[in-house]
């Protein structure tokens, strides 16, 4: 039954030690995710020279809790409240016509708007780059940021567009026959990143997967 026993110390950010479902393998556990986020928070502060104009925007669904966690870490390090929110990209997707209509996620732009801010987009997995392209289009309709940067927890490669991340939690070389699933305490009860066989028919951007 068990493909992989959970490693000790996995409990960070979750109630009980997670167990990877059959056929999948945990590539990041809770404490590794924590460390990666802390590092990204420091990198954001460094790259933006103190983070005074930074606005963090998570892409639903799992980018949103990641944005909240980054904001919290930045506040802890620099004692600076960074506005954070969410940016739903469903209406800007390039594959809307290939599937039945999708339910929309929440878009919450922090008060003060995006004009002249350094917007850091946050997503769980960077894959084809199409989600990020959609997010850039969405941003275009919402304001004129001073700069846009991208932070992802996992970069699994296989880009289909000229897009790269500025901050990466973990570079994870994968095959197209594999899938990457990020689980977070806020949405799934515990933190982990799982590598498993590709799910049929759900290649790009399905809920909580590669995008």
């Amino acid at each position, binding site marked *: 039954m068990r493909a992989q026993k959970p490693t000790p110390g996995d409990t960070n950010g979750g109630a009980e030690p997670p167990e990877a479902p059959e056929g999948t393998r945990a590539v990041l556990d809770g404490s590794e995710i924590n460390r990666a986020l802390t590092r990204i928070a420091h990198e954001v502060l460094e790259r933006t020279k103190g983070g005074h104009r930074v606005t963090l925007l998570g892409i639903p669904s799992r980018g949103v809790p990641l944005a909240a966690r980054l904001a919290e870490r930045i506040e802890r390090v620099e004692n600076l409240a960074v506005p954070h929110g969410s940016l*739903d990209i469903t*209406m*800007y997707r390039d594959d*809307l*016509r*290939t*599937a*039945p*209509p*999708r*339910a*929309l*996620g*929440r*878009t919450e732009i922090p008060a003060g708007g995006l004009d002249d801010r350094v917007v850091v987009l946050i997503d769980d997995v960077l894959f084809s780059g199409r989600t990020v392209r959609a997010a850039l*289009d969405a941003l*275009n*309709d*919402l*304001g004129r940021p001073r700069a846009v940067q991208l932070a992802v927890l996992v970069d699994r490669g296989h880009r289909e567009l000229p897009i790269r991340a500025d901050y990466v939690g973990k570079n994870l070389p994968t095959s197209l026959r594999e899938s990457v699933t990020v689980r977070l305490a806020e949405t799934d009860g515990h933190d982990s990143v799982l590598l498993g066989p590709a799910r049929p028919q759900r290649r790009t951007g399905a809920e909580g997967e590669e995008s």
Partner: protein
Amino acid sequence: MRHLLSTGDLTRDEAVLILDTAAELAQVGDRSVKKLPTLRGRTVVNLFYEDSTRTRTSFEIAAKRLSADVVNFSAKGSSVSKGESLKDTALTLQAMGADGVVIRHGASGAAHRLAGWVDGSVLNAGDGTHEHPTQALLDAYTVRTRLGRLEGLRVAIVGDILHSRVARSNVLLLTTLGAHVTLVAPPTLLPVSVHTWPCEVSYDLDAVLPKTDVVMMLRVQAERMHASFFPSVREYSRGYGMDGARLDRMPRDAIVMHPGPMVRGMEISAEVADSPRCTVVEQVANGVSLRMAVLYLLLGGS
């Protein structure tokens, strides 16, 4: 969902999805760029056989906010006035490549017939005295926004039920969403089949009001009346009109709705129409978001 013909076709999940989608799309109206690229390259035809400003404009704005191309087609000044049948008009629109047809027609069931003739999605924007699904959906959305829920609410629909398409759509939808509906009207303005509807019926507005969270006033549709249904406007207004005294008899947070156009002094007094507890203007604003949601869910996918 391929067409939107009747609120009776909607499951609870589908109806909630439409309302949730509308809630997200409402934000678009507050942005500097009030447009989404979602329906780029799709064509929506507004096919209106009856006069309408509110509904047609609302659908037009909704479709344009989603970047669809909109063609307005009204019976006046078209080949319909030369004697073309609905079917031939539909096939013409079909040949021109309409992805969605929004139809308002004086005959009950027109939207249903149309859905059998065209490949695209058909949205019923009012067919005779039958249904007006988007109005019911935007009413439900308005109630949910104002009062926070629909489940368990007591809703009274008051007035000309007989000629109203809004009443039927609302009864079916609100019941699906868990509200309790009571129809209040003089016996002459109730349809014969009303006992088969999933709601209660009363002839006494004053008895119903204290137990009501939402009251929906309907316009008396004089243009559809070919007989005498009540003795005089004054008598109708005394028995079934909403005024300040009746508003005071309702629970403190109860709201008054009206699908418009209102006839002040008939079914609603100016005092009530202008009160903050009356949601008429909100309903119009919500109509755009709601119709965007419906257009997205019908035309946005594969």
